[in-house]
């Protein structure tokens, strides 16, 4: 599991790599909270390297989405979601609501 945050003018990119289960989801929560606490509410989550994403990780994604969108101050958008992960997110009814882009350039450009 690896997490890397890149600060851009428009937004932060949080790149997730590897396995996100109940054990590692708190690291992802910390990265999202760090961005929110620093006042950056426009976030792109680069999912290209994600191999596993359990309900614990999905719950954190939903929490960050709610937090960032409060008072219309920002959003959480996904980039490059691998097919299997997309199927799981879709099953959970996430993709209907969270904006998803084929790559990070398009996701960043959407802000």
């Amino acid at each position: 599991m690896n997490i890397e945050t890149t600060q851009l003018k428009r937004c932060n990119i949080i790149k997730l790599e590897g396995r996100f289960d109940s054990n590692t989801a708190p690291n992802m929560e910390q990265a999202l909270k760090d961005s929110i606490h620093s006042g950056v509410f426009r976030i792109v989550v680069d999912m290209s390297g994600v191999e596993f994403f359990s309900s614990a990780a999905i719950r954190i994604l939903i929490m960050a989405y709610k937090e960032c969108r409060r008072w219309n101050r920002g959003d959480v958008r996904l980039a490059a979601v691998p097919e299997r992960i997309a199927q799981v997110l879709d099953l959970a009814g996430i993709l209907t609501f969270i904006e998803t882009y084929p790559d990070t350039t398009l996701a960043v450009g959407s802000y």
Partner: protein
Amino acid sequence: MERSQVGAMEPFELCVSSDLTQLARISEFVAQSARQAGVSEAGVFEIQMATDEACTNSIEHAYSGHTGEVRVCCWVEEGDFVVRVTDFGRRFDPNQVPLPDTSAPLESRDIGGLGLFFMRELTDHVEFSSDAVQGNRVILRKHLPLGR
């Protein structure tokens, strides 16, 4: 071990302590067993997800911070790849868990119930049982491709 139930594959068993750091190991174990049983790659991912949710429930809810043992056993039976997760913690009643409303906007989404939802949606059959001797058991079944 229930040898009489075993089909084409010898059963595999993994016993780990009730610690979330063990989830990755469990996932790898289930993936290897499922591949050996002939589960498709998409199916391997689905049974990994379902098993991860069952084991997370055992560790976080049944043992709830106490140390205990989680047993994961895999075998083939009547055309199904079967995973059984056993713990000896607090009894779990799946009927008490409300189903998530996956069509509700995320702002109004209730946060629980997703793990159980995945167990049901990503397998072909889920069964829960509890008794003092055999512990709490979750049995997850995935149909094997025909012709095996």
